[in-house]
């Protein structure tokens, strides 16, 4: 009789296992679980709704209309470089929605899947990261409106914008994931997180140049520098607008800072997640 056991992969379970930060071969083995969990979130999301996937378009669109009316028409905030305000704010809102959506969903993801964590083994990182796909789908749906807006106002996207856009999206995702990984792990132990996050995201919107251009801070150089260093979305949104519309120059300096900061955020979040993940099942 052949010894099947000898052919299969042997592994050791001990108190010190799972040291490596990212076990790529294991993640690859669990890629189907990643897909299935993302698919579950996507398909459950719009079950029993009439509008269905249209919600993903309606939400940023309605926000854009209301924000344009309040901040542009009433409060008289301008884009600063002649870009029509609806396009200006919509680019900001799209990226902001991607960023905040990932933080919001991933920080809740471990606790809402507590049952899975207590009963089945898989690389835990799959749960908070599977929300990225749903956020990306929303982002892509929302982008359709942007295309219409650009056509409506007669703007062609600049090549440079299209080239840096993937980088900007990756940076938004990685900084959001970093924060999300940290908060989701923290939420396992301290449920305060679920109360703080919505509030934190709401405040963060106002210290991110979504409804106003970053140039508005020209007189407050210290605040502007602080914002670019601490909030990667500041540089990302500013560069996305400059790149796509082409009315002002891309601030390469801010872009590089944002890339570095978002990668740093991702690493720190991942580090904390990895340090605590072994005990999720005991604490959740």
């Amino acid at each position, binding site marked *: 009789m052949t*010894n*099947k*056991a*000898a052919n*299969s*992969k*042997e*592994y*050791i*379970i*001990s*108190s010190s*296992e*799972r040291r490596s930060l990212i076990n790529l071969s294991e993640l690859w083995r669990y890629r*189907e*679980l990643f897909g*299935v969990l993302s698919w*579950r979130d996507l*398909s*459950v999301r719009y*079950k*029993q709704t009439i509008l269905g996937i249209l919600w993903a378009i309606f939400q940023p669109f309605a926000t854009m209309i209301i924000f344009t009316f309040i901040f542009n028409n009433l409060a008289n905030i301008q884009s600063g470089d002649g870009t029509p305000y609806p396009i200006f704010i919509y680019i900001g809102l799209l990226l902001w929605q991607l960023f905040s959506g990932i933080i919001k969903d991933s920080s809740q993801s471990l606790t809402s899947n507590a*049952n*899975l*964590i*207590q*009963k*089945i*083994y*898989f690389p835990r990182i799959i749960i908070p990261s599977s929300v990225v796909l749903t956020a990306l789908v929303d982002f892509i749906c929302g982008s359709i409106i942007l295309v219409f807006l650009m056509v409506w106002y007669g703007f062609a996207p600049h090549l440079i914008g299209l080239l840096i856009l993937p980088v900007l999206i990756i940076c938004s995702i990685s900084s959001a994931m970093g924060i999300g990984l940290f908060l989701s792990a923290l939420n396992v*132990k*301290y*449920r*305060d997180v679920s109360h703080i996050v919505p509030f934190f995201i709401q405040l963060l919107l106002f210290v991110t140049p979504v409804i106003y251009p970053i140039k508005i801070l020209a007189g407050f150089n210290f605040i502007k520098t602080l914002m670019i260093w601490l909030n990667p979305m500041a540089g990302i949104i500013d560069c996305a607008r400059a790149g796509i519309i082409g009315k002002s120059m891309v601030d390469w300096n801010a872009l590089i800072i944002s890339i570095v900061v978002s990668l740093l955020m991702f690493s720190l979040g991942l580090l904390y997640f990895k340090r605590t993940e*072994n*005990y999720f*099942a*005991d*604490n959740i």
Partner: protein
Amino acid sequence: MPKPIIEIRDISKRYRIGAEKEPYLSLRDEIAKFLNSRLWNNKNPGPDIWALKNVSFNVEESEIVGIIGKNGAGKSTLLKILSRITPPAEGSVIMRGRVGSLLEVGTGFHQELTGRENIYLNGTILGMTRKEIDANFDKIVAFADIGEMLDTPVKRYSSGMFVRLAFAVAAHLESEILLIDEVLAVGDADFQKKCLGKIDEVSKVGRTILFVSHNMASIRLLCNRCVFLDSGQVKYVGDVSECINRYMNQDVSGSSIASHFDRKSTNIIINSVKINGSDLDVVQLEYNSNYLNFEIEGELLSPLPIDIQVHFNDIHGTPLAIFFPGYESGYAQKYPAGKFKINSTCELPKMTKGEYILSLHLVDADKCRLANITNRVLLRSPGTPSCTGKVIDYNSGEGWILLPEKKANDV
């Protein structure tokens, strides 16, 4: 000599007492606690309990190993460590095969998704590849017997259908090692039988199975080896009969029944159980006493029809008799949510001398098990003395009932 498929070396797992009372902390509490300990300079991390302590044993390929022990003996913790859900505090385990763990039926099922979608979802969560699910899809649907409900959201399923579908997916897991925790405690008797059959079938193709159960009959039926855990330590590994004997005879020295309540039921809370007026888990019958009175008090979280069911087994787990008043009458009294009290008396035949094990359950009139109360009440019968004063002993192999003679003039 092939290497064992599972090598468990000296593993221990520690839990902090009190962790159960605080399901989660808030930052404020933590800060308050921190300040407190600083101010009063008392470090009080709380005592530890060892859920497992120096557990070692090997499992060879294609063995079926049963794990038995009281509640809190560490059975579930052991399975959790083997399935890598929680790490051991000390020691290590070497696994030589793909592990599938069934610690619960229907993990990850989503109410809004259809049966078909849930098969893929649950299958993937349990570790099957899409190809494997595709290949087994028809078999799963047939086993679950859900017919045209396949494309209906699971939330519209009856609880029976739900359990059948969930088990069907799990039963088709094709990993070399299967870890199973009491999944058979749910569902009606027919379905439990079907599940046992499936496990038996799976084991015949050479899969290795670790099987935690409170049901000695299924352990006896399925396992070739057995591990007896008590307060986190291995008390015995080896022969199934010997293992069950030791488990059945462990400290049944008159602790209260409440000390080994099975608390797995979600909507029934049992507060007290008395047998012939005593809450001890050893019942000594008097000479010529011919009844057992069961008094069960508890709380229902939702209105339910409930009835008592008592199994009489011998100490090897062989079923001898059953007391099940609701089955005879086809009726179980419906209790409203809140406190309930069941008082039921069972008439005994002329029993031979011996020790018998009672297991108590709450069921509905359809034999669907709602809650396990305990499976370890020791009934000591002094036997029925004959006119000559001699007593027939069960251990002499002459059965457990002494049948009375029907006199000619009675006919």
